[in-house]
């Protein structure tokens, strides 16, 4: 299990190879990559800056991965989140999960990104033609994370 917060880009093939590490028990690998879009809330985005809270960020990501491992039958998980200046088409975040079967891997991957969106201390500031603005949190992200709580209760 690993989490990384970094300025530099990541290579998904290299990261998956390291995560699998020749483990023959692994029958499913699910990855999610988040990327910078050039349009948000009807404004053209030329660049964004991702800020985080060093010290808490790593702790929050490790806690989310630990919850995923407790909740789903997975072997390992990796989270990489970039910070600093990013442009449209740049990769922002990688979540990769290994498991014996696809069901648990898909669920765990989605759980991690849904929780990351609402629990991990990252903030996006966008450059638009109207000036710089902090991105607003979305209610749909809270709902996505809340869905896992309902699933746990049922």
């Amino acid at each position, binding site marked *: 299990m690993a989490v990384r917060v970094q300025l530099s880009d990541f290579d998904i093939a290299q990261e998956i190879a390291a995560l699998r590490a020749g483990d023959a028990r692994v029958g499913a690998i699910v990855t999610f990559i988040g990327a910078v879009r050039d349009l948000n809330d009807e404004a053209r985005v030329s660049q964004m800056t991702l800020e985080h809270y060093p*010290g*808490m960020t790593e702790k929050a990501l490790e806690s989310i991965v630990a919850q995923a491992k407790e909740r789903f039958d997975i072997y390992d998980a990796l989270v990489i989140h970039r910070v600093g200046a990013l442009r449209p088409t740049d990769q922002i975040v990688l979540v990769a999960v290994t498991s014996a079967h696809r069901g648990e891997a898909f669920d765990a991957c989605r759980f991690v990104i849904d929780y990351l*969106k609402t629990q991990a201390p990252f903030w996006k500031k966008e450059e638009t033609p109207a000036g710089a603005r*902090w991105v607003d*949190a979305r209610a749909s992200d809270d709902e996505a994370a809340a869905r896992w709580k309902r699933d746990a209760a049922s």
Partner: protein
Amino acid sequence: MNDTATRTAITINIVYLARLREAFASAGERLKIAQDTPPTVASVLKTLAARGGAFATELAPGRAVRVAVNHVLASSETPLRDGDEVALLPPVTGG
């Protein structure tokens, strides 16, 4: 300063992040709190909001500000101790 005040006063390190850092024009500050009852997250927010201006606006009841104490998300009842790092977080937008 009398003995009672010395015993109950604590100093915390406050961190302002993202939009709040800009609104307060400050990355953080050391804040000394002296009061009779043990200080909590709620009492710090109340102290800051009482300054008026951007603090009153951003920390008004109902505003979505979360607080982390020593890098862990806290509630308004979380008690504070001397030397704690208390961070004020706007709603997060990573991923």
